[in-house]
């Protein structure tokens, strides 16, 4: 998994909790990398999983809740860093539709070995869309929240119903 996902997570913990909690979950997670990640590198997903578990233990928040939170947080960062990519998006559906075709395409240019989730979309009505998310990792809540954030950028309310296919 991309190092930026690690680093942003660590930053969110440092910012929203404290550096002591950050150090603690890093220690508790017994990471091979010792919590040292490069934003342009690729790291083991199980370390991220470990970190989320430890934080859940420390904060007493469920892992999915944490991932939702994180999805929300990362969207802002991404929006800050790569906002110009979304300049032409007027409706949240458009973004979802372009993840696979545009955004992930660019990601692949820079990180050819990145393992990205797939977003299959199909508009059923003018305001209903069916989206199939598929990934090796169980990051659906992160992904959903990342997407829900879109509502802040548009005017519409997006209501997600998640159905897992395992």
């Amino acid at each position, binding site marked *: 998994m991309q190092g930026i996902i690690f680093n942003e997570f660590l930053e969110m913990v440092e910012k929203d909790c404290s550096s002591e909690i950050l150090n603690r979950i890093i220690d508790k997670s017994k990471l091979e990398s010792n919590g040292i990640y490069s934003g342009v590198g690729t790291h083991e997903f199980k370390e991220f999983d470990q970190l989320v578990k430890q934080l859940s233990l420390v904060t007493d928040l469920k892992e999915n809740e944490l991932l939702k939170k994180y999805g929300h947080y990362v969207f802002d960062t991404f929006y800050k860093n790569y906002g110009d990519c979304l300049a032409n998006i007027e409706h949240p559906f458009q973004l979802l539709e372009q993840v696979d075709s545009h955004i992930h395409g660019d990601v692949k240019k*820079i990180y050819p070995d990145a393992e990205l989730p797939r977003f299959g979309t199909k508009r059923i009505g003018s305001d209903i869309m069916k989206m199939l998310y598929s990934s090796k990792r169980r990051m659906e809540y992160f992904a959903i929240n990342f997407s829900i954030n879109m509502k802040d950028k548009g005017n519409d309310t997006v209501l997600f119903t998640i159905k897992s296919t395992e």
Partner: protein
Amino acid sequence: MSSESKILRVLERERLARKESERILETKSLEIYEQKLEIEALRKKLNEETNRKYLEINRTQLIQQEVFEAHPFSIFTYSLKSLKILNANNTAVREYGYSKEEFYKLLITDLYNDDDKKSVLNQIDLIKSGVNNTRVWNHVKKDGSISMVKITGVSIEFENEQARVVVVEDITQRMLLEETNALQQKKYIDLIDKSSDLIFGMSPEGNFSFVNNVTCALTGFSERELQLKNFSELIRPDYQKRVVNFYKFQLESATETTYTEFPIISKDGLEIWLGQNVNLSQNESGLTEISVIARVITERKIFEKALLRSEDKFRSIIENMELGLLETDRDGKIVKAYKSFCAIVGYSPEELEGNYGEFLLTDEAMEIMAKEQGNRRSGEIGVYEIQLICKDQTKKWVMISGAPFYDQNNRFAGSIGIHLDISERKIIEAQLIEAKNLAEESLRAKEVFLANISHEIRTPLNAVIGLSQILKTSELNEDQREMIKQVSLASNNLLNLINDILLLSKTEAMGIKLKPSLNVIKNTLEEIAFMLAYQAKEKGVNFELKLNVQEGYLHSFDKLRFTQVIQNLISNALKFTNEGYVKLSASNPIDASDIEIIIEDSGIGIPEDELLTVFEDFTQAKNNNPEIYGGTGLGLSIVNNIVKLMDGSIHVERLNQGTRFTLSFKFPVEVHQTNQLINSELEYDSTKLEGLSVLVAEDNDVNQLLIGKILDSWGVNFEIAKDGQNAIKLMEDKDFDIVLMDIRMPIMNGLDATAIIRTNLKNYFIPIIALTANSIGDDKSEYLSMGFNDVLLKPFQQEDLFNMLVHFSINRNIELRKKLLAASQGDFGFAETLRTIFIEDSLLRIANMNLAASEARRYDVGMIAHSMKPAIQQLGSQNLVELIRALEIEEFDDISLLPAVRSFELCILILVEELKSVIL
């Protein structure tokens, strides 16, 4: 600032720096990515370009290879250093017979023969030093054959060595062709030079371009002289304009070939006629060339002139003769009427010419003319006679000889009629015909008279002779016997006289036909001698017989007539000889077919001056008193006539004491087979007629008696019918084997009776023999066609009657059996089949023939007769064969055809019945 915040600041800077470096890294990564993409695109393009170029090079190479291989000339590459052949194309493989692998083992010099090798090496040295040339060489192929080749080469670098590519053109064929062409050209030149015709060329202006030898020889001018002349100068001056204009026209109208005839004058002034063919052609530069072939026709021209002259001559001859000449065109219109013709008909030429001349012809003449006109168109020359109507309306007979004449394309152009006035001749002719008719009329009257006489006299005479014969055998006293003897003698003499007269009239008209049969000449003469020896003995004359003829031969001659001749001569000799001898001798002076018979006597002889006339009618030696010697004086004329008829000769000479007649004959001979049948039986074997039942239809009581006696003597059963009706009645009641039918009978004559027997009684098979005293016009075939089987002439000889009865009774079936077995070559089973087939086939054909005859299809009757002939020839009688032959050659006219076929049918039906009765 606390140390912690200091650290935090440092950390923050560090974090930002990290982020910045990460951002830079990402940007760089993206750049690298895009460059990589660009590089990849470039590389791809490069690859494509490389492949394209590669393919292009490959294709060019292939084409080059193909051109190299398929080039019509052999191409070799060889090393200039080792002289090894490095490459050779397919043409070379084909031409030289070496495979490519074999070529690679060869040196280029191996393609040359030993004599050439040194100069080849020299040539290669020259090439190495940069000298290039093309040359003709001889190349040796694998099979040893040699080709003439032209080699062109270029030096190249081939696989890092100096090499030479040579293109080898095989020019053997071309050289051969050139040689042939040269030969051909020489032939043409020779032909022109040796031709017997004048051959020359000239320009359209008439200037000679070339002349052959003949032209020089004939005109007398040399080639040089002619080339300085114009053609027109040679032409005879009065023809020049005409000939020049003729050729001008040819040139203007571009007529390819023309022919014309004109005279030229040779250098020494001789006139030569030429028949000249002129042919126009274009040479390579498009100019018109004139080639001329001319033949000397002087002789023909002279001949034509002579012909014209002779034509004029003949025309004037004909004009001056008294023959009317008339020329008509193809439609018969008078084109020219000559004076001589006008003189005959009295019209002027102007009145006739342009007309069809129908006013000259009578209706009959018109018809004849139309027919002749048709014949003439088909090229026939006809001579015919017609009547012409003259201007004064008198009619004249002319004989016309009409001949067609033709134009130069051999098409009928008209005809020339030559008219000869034959009016005079026609009158004489008419008179002649009248005289002839008159003569013929009287001749016919004479014949009828003779026929009647013969009948009227012979019938009673027959009775007299017959009865005296019978009377002789009855009991008589001496006087009666003597009287009967005298009656017999006198009546016999009378019969002889009548027979003589009849015979003479027949022989004079050459009316008798010889009926040759095969006989032993010696036996015939002995029989005659036997008959006359008694007469000689009675007269006290010595009769000598000296027969010195080759034996073992059969001669073909008419025995009856022959006997008549010899008998007559011997009787004569006996008559005029009172003492001494009469001698009959015979010999073969040359070979068996030559017979010389001498009758010699020691009688009173014939006076010298009458020797030449003894053979004339009614002549006897003057000093002979008819009262003493008797006779009609016809004997020797008859003898003479018969001998002539037999192609023999008779010759009389006077002896010191007596006369000698010498006769010569030449009869066809056959070698005598010992078992061959000869008709010389005199004894009647009456067993042959045993059980025979005969019907005699005869009205004359005496004749009834006579025939009855004879038949009794042979033990033959018979019944007498006194007329035809009676005969038919008897036949209805009883079966007879044979009918003897008199022709002349009251109530119903023999012809009618026979017709009824055949048609009404349908009795086809019973033999009916006609008895007739009518000896003139006794054409047997006439009786046969009326349903009779044969004819017996009254008064008949017993022998003839006997033979005829035998023939028609048993003998017939035996003969038929023989014929059947002969046809089947002795195979009885096949003979049976043959009989069945013949019967069925004949009945079918005869029905068809009847139908054809009833529709007067004579040709079809003939065809059917022809188809039946072979079988009839094998099985039928001679009479039937004759009848079928007559039918086959369509001898009958429309009226007589049907009766003839009917009688033929009768005969066939009889034959069929007979065939059925044959026991095989």
